[in-house]
């Protein structure tokens, strides 16, 4: 190949005038950069310190940095084509550091990389490969931005981005072209100067455009809060969340300036995709606008001109934005921080919200039902009370203790636990875990609930907790840590997957028939779970056998990843293992970490009607379109939302079953007379 044999041409001599001009230009460019960058740096450094920030343990930070920045893994993985194009540009820049240093040094006659020397020859060739990749990459990105124009990049064309792309392309082309000329050729000098000018023009554009991410995002990724949706504890008696500029911490300001406006957050946001006002990118840019105009010492409210007050309250806290963000912005602590600011001061006025808060200030559950309802259910379902001797504490949660469908899931999961011989009990008194108030930013009620529950668990000497609700799991395990030490908590999908070997596998059922084993369930066992098994569903009356719903073929089950199990807990495999025991697993178009929220999270299920399209309806339609005969869920909130959405579909709707129910219907009927 030509590049391997060719040598990079460099002008051999620079006149004094040229050198002087170079000094002036470099000084002007660097000065222009610094004057603008200083302003940004000042805004970040003058922001409030992050009280709960710890640099150590540093291992994860280094790993995140290597994986996300150096390898560009997240950028590529979530958007392979543009991601790869971006990675080529980034790696090209990295390879060019040495080339650029030598470029300017040679201008002053102090070049240290001899293009003809063995290392110089190798390195210039090496850089040329990256230059080529970078040129192709930036061309691809240019075409995407100006020809393909995906909607999340915004309606307005950014000519600045076009200009930057042109400069990068020019840098690479002028570098590559120098391989095709000789040192003495006057074109060499022209190429050298064009390359220099392109670079010196690029530098001062960085600080006031989204290209600032070049400088800031490596730091942003390295300095993350160290956990998904890690909500920082309030700092002292005057911290109520994000109210004004004075509440913005250095991390928040750094993140606001790091945004590269790629719109991945918007692309995946359930609110932005169903006609709500919330657009996570605009929230971040709103903070940046606030900092630019008013700065971090301003007492002006954050909610208002830059971010409309209702915007944070449209967030389901599904976390798709934070998960997708390639520059390390942590949207959830920001959105929840804005809610905290509004709720902890009483500025947020919402009838449904106030009702939820009042229910949890006084009572024990988010539904506002008397606790005797839970007691009645425990008695009726014959659930044992936890007395310290059992291995597991089965956490009921508001859905499991009070919601008709949630209770069915608990009853079925209890059957499975009994079948497996796992000893368990439920708490005599259990309060809401506090998930809805935590996400809505009511720190007062959350603290009350967390402390009361931690006390109850400690009093009963609970060693392990298992729950059917990913929201409870996350809140118990992570959020309660602000107020004590919770016992280990697992989601029932994790529990069931651990015992997968001991659970009946549907397709093998006929083979399993033997004298010693309990009589396996025939196809008509399905009848125990007719479609839309609600509170009053006929499956409770055993005198009326239902016709089998399945005709012997395996069920096609589409599994919906709950946000709080997937993105929050990184549990994807276990529920699928469980689903596969009951039928053929099919995937929705958006699955695993790209799963689309059901719309219930962030306390939204307790608030009033959504504006725009209903998120749950959109997701339910997507699940139905897979043609699956069963929708498998692993969260009672998703289940409840889909129950409503499927009701509109009438008779043709697929069955809706939690993974515990899928498992339970495969159990032998022993004991059920």
């Amino acid at each position, binding site marked *: 190949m030509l590049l391997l044999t060719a040598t990079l041409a460099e002008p051999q001599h620079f006149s004094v005038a040229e050198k002087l001009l170079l000094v002036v230009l470099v000084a002007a460019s660097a000065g222009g950069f610094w004057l603008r960058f200083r302003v940004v740096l000042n805004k970040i450094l003058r922001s409030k310190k992050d009280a709960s920030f710890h640099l150590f343990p540093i291992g994860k930070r280094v790993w995140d940095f290597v994986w996300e920045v150096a390898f560009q893994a997240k950028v590529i993985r979530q958007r392979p084509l543009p991601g790869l194009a971006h990675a080529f540009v980034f790696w090209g820049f990295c390879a060019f550091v040495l080339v650029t240093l030598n470029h300017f040094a040679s201008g002053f006659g102090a070049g240290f990389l001899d293009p003809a020397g063995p290392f110089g020859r190798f390195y210039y060739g090496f850089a040329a490969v990256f230059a080529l990749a970078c040129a192709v990459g930036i061309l691809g990105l240019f075409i995407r931005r100006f020809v393909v124009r995906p909607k999340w990049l915004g309606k307005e064309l950014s000519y600045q981005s076009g200009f930057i792309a042109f400069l990068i392309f020019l840098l690479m082309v002028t570098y590559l072209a120098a391989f095709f000329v000789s040192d003495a050729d006057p074109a060499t000098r022209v190429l050298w100067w064009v390359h220099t000018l392109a670079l010196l023009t690029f530098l001062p554009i960085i600080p006031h455009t989204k290209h600032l991410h070049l400088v800031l995002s490596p730091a942003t990724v390295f300095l993350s809060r160290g956990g998904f949706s890690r909500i920082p504890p309030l700092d002292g008696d005057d911290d109520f969340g994000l109210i004004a500029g004075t509440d913005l911490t250095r991390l928040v300001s750094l993140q606001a300036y790091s945004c590269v406006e790629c719109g991945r957050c918007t692309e995946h946001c359930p609110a932005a995709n169903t006609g709500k006002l919330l657009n996570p990118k605009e929230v971040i840019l709103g903070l940046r606008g606030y900092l630019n105009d008013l700065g971090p010492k301003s007492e002006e409210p954050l909610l208002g001109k830059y971010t409309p007050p209702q915007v944070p309250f449209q967030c389901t806290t599904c976390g798709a934005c934070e998960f997708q963000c390639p520059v390390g912005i942590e949207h959830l602590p920001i959105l929840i921080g804005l809610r905290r600011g509004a709720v*902890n001061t009483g500025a947020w006025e919402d009838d449904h919200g*106030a009702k939820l808060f009042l229910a949890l*200030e006084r009572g024990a559950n988010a539904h506002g039902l008397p606790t005797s309802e839970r007691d009645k259910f425990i008695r009726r379902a014959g659930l044992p009370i936890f007395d310290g001797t059992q291995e597991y504490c089965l956490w009921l949660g508001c859905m499991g203790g009070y919601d008709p469908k949630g209770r069915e899931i608990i009853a079925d999961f209890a059957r499975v636990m009994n079948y497996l011989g796992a000893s368990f009990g439920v708490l005599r008194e259990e309060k809401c875990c506090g998930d809805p108030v935590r996400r809505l930013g009511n720190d007062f*009620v959350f603290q009350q609930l967390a402390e009361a529950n931690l006390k109850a668990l400690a009093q009963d000497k609970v060693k392990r907790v298992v729950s059917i609700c990913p929201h409870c799991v996350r809140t118990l395990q992570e959020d309660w840590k602000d107020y004590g030490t919770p016992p280990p908590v697992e989601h029932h999908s994790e529990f069931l997957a651990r015992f997968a070997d001991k659970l009946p596998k549907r397709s093998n059922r006929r083979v399993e028939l033997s004298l010693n084993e309990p009589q396996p369930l025939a196809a008509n066992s399905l009848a125990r779970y007719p479609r839309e098994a609600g509170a009053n569903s006929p499956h409770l009356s055993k005198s009326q056998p239902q016709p089998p719903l399945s005709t012997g073929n395996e069920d096609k089950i589409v599994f919906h990843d709950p946000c709080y199990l997937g993105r929050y807990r990184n549990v994807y495999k276990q529920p699928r293992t469980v689903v596969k025991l009951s039928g053929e697993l099919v995937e929705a178009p958006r699955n695993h970490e790209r799963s689309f929220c059901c719309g219930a999270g962030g306390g939204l299920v307790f608030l009033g009607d959504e504006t725009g399209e209903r998120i749950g309806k959109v997701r339910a339609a997507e699940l139905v379109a897979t043609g699956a005969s069963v929708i498998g869920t692993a969260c009672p909130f998703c289940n409840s939302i889909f129950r409503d959405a499927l009701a509109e579909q009438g008779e043709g709707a697929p069955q809706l079953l939690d993974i515990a129910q899928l498992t339970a219907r495969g159990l032998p009927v022993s004991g059920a007379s």
Partner: protein
Amino acid sequence: MKIIVAIKQVPERDAQVRIDAAAKWIEESGLQHALNESDAYALEEALQLKEKNGGEVVVLIAGPERVGPTIREALAKGADRAIHIDCADLGKLDALGVARLLAAAIKPESPDLVLTGLQSDDLGQGQTGVILAELLGLPHSSLILHVEKTDAGLTVKRELEEGWFQTIELPAPAVLTIQSGGNKLRYATLMGIKRARSKPVLQVAEAELAIDAAPVVVLERVALPQKQKSTQILSGTPKDAAAALVEKLKFEARVL
């Protein structure tokens, strides 16, 4: 406008109530307590009046030490200060005794308005507010949903039977007993709770008020209601079942 809101702490709404050994009162140990519901509405009405007309909201409560959280809740929601009449056992007093305690604490404050809940969720006598007005020598009105301050005094909206309302005018100061549901209650906030810490709570010993607390109404016995529900399932054809039902309604239930 200085408003005094007399509130009470009662057992939580869905508490499992047990009768104590002497069958004179309920077993208090292990019981959770909360602000009486209609008192919460009285407080809300007072806070809204203050937001509109300015002034001060003072909460007044009689009870043992356990009323502390209820006082803080009221202060957190926006009351300016509190008076706590330390009274170890409210159960030994009758409505007159409680009203005497409250009146003795209110008199030196000379408020422009006294609000209290219509009735307590535990005893439900609906007497205290009315007697309080008598003891203070002030006009009163009960079952109030809404209060408005006017130049002449007060305009209040009362609830009558069957969805009827009555609007009346009365001079201030007055004592009003507030019905639940007239307003939307506000939620407690972290900021409110923190601010409440520095708000003054005046502790008054029961003895200091020097009232004659000897009850004129004596509680004889407390009992849980007998479970009387009995369900019968009538079998047979719908026609036979209907005939049997009519028979039973006529001769057993005697409602036809």
